[in-house]
């Protein structure tokens, strides 16, 4: 037998769980302000998550998917992007969405059951949350195709979970992105769990990154709890994409410290000890330790930031709770560019049976 193909999957980490550098940091990380911005984004997301779960428990929003423990993946990815790039998220990527300008009010509206939550004022061209698993990979391929066709120096960044890599949409989209050498970065938030199904029952592949090899593109792993590493690896992939080098698949290794959603109870299928072990690896304490070691962070700054994030979340919650309910027309207004005549009778009925005091157009 002759070997006709070989491959290897690289792994990148810059800061270990104790906050100590494991290799020289990339240039952007030499600027404390840049790292503090990442730190702040992760703390804000975690503050938001805790509040959103409380809002769900008290019936103020519906089912909610927390990003607890995985903040570095979407914040790292979003921070590597330019405003004109497009984020194609899953449904667990609000930390990165906030970084790109989506507001917490919009996110609360979304999880609170209101389509206005996906009408982002900024960023206008980012895709909305994707609840069907992995289907968004194909959308990112289409977006990247549009950028390439129009010769725009933009890229699509797509996020999905480890479970999503089992789906056909993932393989089909990845394959097309490879054939067409598209400006696209696909990031797997490998949080080790697809609801109750652990990573090892999802695939016999040693890494999920190696799924790139079958599509003829580069695949690499990154420590998904090291936001510096996630940002750096995504930046490299984006630079390659913009230079015409084609797509990259990045597997970010992290851990879902919370339940799948507020409708889930993870104690049914995993033991507390394993979760405790993963709390020692989580991304926020890691970056805080690094910042403290380098003298850029202290107790006062931490307290001020926690206070600021709590206030910001609290203001967003107040604003969300004050948004009037949409009226019945909201079901019809945006279904088509222009409401077909065939639907006018049904809209009239919805108006007639709407609760009194409806606000009309939503």
């Amino acid at each position: 037998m002759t070997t006709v193909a070989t491959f290897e999957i690289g792994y990148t980490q810059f800061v270990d769980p104790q906050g100590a550098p494991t290799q020289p940091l990339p240039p952007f990380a030499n600027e404390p302000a840049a790292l503090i911005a990442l730190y702040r984004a992760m703390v804000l997301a975690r503050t938001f998550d805790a509040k959103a779960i409380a809002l769900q428990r008290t019936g103020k929003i519906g089912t909610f998917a927390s990003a607890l423990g995985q903040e570095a993946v979407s914040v790292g990815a979003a921070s590597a992007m330019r405003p004109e790039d497009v984020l194609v998220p899953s449904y667990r990527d609000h930390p990165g969405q906030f970084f790109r300008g989506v507001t917490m009010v919009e996110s609360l509206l979304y999880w609170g059951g209101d389509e206005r939550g996906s009408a982002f004022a900024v960023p206008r061209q980012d895709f909305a949350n994707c609840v069907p698993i992995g289907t968004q990979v194909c959308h990112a391929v289409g977006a990247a195709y549009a950028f390439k066709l129009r010769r725009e120096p933009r890229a699509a960044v797509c996020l999905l979970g480890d479970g999503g890599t089992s789906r056909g949409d993932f393989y089909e989209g990845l394959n097309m992105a490879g054939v067409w050498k598209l400006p696209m970065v696909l990031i797997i938030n490998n949080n080790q769990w697809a609801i109750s199904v652990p990573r090892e029952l999802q695939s016999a592949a040693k890494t999920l990154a190696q799924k790139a090899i079958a599509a003829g593109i580069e695949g690499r792993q990154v420590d998904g709890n090291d936001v510096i590493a996630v940002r750096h690896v995504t930046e490299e992939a984006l630079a390659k994409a913009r230079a015409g080098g084609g797509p990259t698949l990045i597997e970010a290794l992290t851990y879902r410290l919370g339940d799948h959603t507020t409708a889930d109870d993870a104690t049914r299928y995993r033991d507390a000890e394993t979760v405790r072990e993963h709390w020692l690896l989580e991304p926020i304490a890691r970056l805080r330790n690094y910042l403290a070691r380098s003298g850029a962070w202290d107790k006062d700054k931490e307290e001020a930031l926690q206070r600021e994030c709590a206030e910001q979340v609290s203001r967003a919650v107040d604003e969300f709770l004050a948004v009037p309910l949409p009226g019945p027309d909201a079901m019809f207004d945006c279904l088509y560019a222009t409401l077909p005549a065939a639907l006018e009778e049904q809209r009239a009925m919805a108006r007639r049976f709407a609760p009194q005091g409806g606000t009309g157009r939503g």
Partner: protein
Amino acid sequence: MAEVNLVEAVNLALAHEMARDPAVVVLGEDVGANGGVFRATVGLQARFGTERVVDTPLAEAAIAGVAVGMAVSGLRPVAEIQFSGFMYPTLDQIINHAARVRHRTRGRLSCPMVLRTPSGAGIHAPEHHSESPETLFAHVPGLRMVIPSSPARAYGLLLAAIRDPDPVIFFEPTRLYRLFKQEVEDDGEALPLDACFVLREGKDLTLVSWGAMLQETLAAADALAATGVSAEVIDVATLKPLDMAVILDSVAKTGRCVIVHEAPRTVGCGAEIAAGLAEHGLTSLLAPVQRVTGYDVVVPLPRLEHQYMPSVERIMDAAKKALEYA
């Protein structure tokens, strides 16, 4: 003006829009060098290049999903699924995404895409190549479901579909691709979507159909005319959203209605039309609405497919029932 068949009319419309609008791209299996297995896209790649006429890998779900991403990002993709029997993997992308993009983002994003596919039986094709699944798409809010029945309507409706700001599923009856020619001027004039076409006016009976079945329906109207019965013939053309007003107006005049479709009967689009007549046209009706449809069976392989498809005789039989009802 040239005489063209239906597949040539599709090709004319695609070429016209690609020349007019640089955002239009064509993608699908074998659509490039081969020009499509039915030759609907023949010549387009040579004229518009490999970037705008894209041979995709063999993956229907992704063809639909990539078209969604393209449409959301400012292109006007016209994707081809090689046969309607291979549409099923696209349902997730079409129902969960294409149909909802505008609504779920409150109009921030939209999805102006067309998914074209040959549909229907009667060409002695292998298994899975003779399906008529229009009802699956007609059920989905946010979609348009269009089926032309002639070269002229294929040209005008496909132009309209590509220009429409929302997703359109466009079924092309394979049996009509080369059945007959018509004068079609390549003038870029679109026909209206969401509108039924009255193909023939009449006063005694309304025959409602779409796609390839208009052939048998028109033949039945001829046969009825020979017996002194004046049948009005309506081509529904856009099944979703349904232009019920034209059908109701016709039945208000005739009082009798026969609906003809090739798809299986249960929950077929004929059921929706019949229900619309019951809801809004009951006092006009002089007889129960008749349906002539494919049977509720798996589309047969070629040896039996012509017994499955509604025939002129079956339409005449239903017309007789409607006409003789006291």
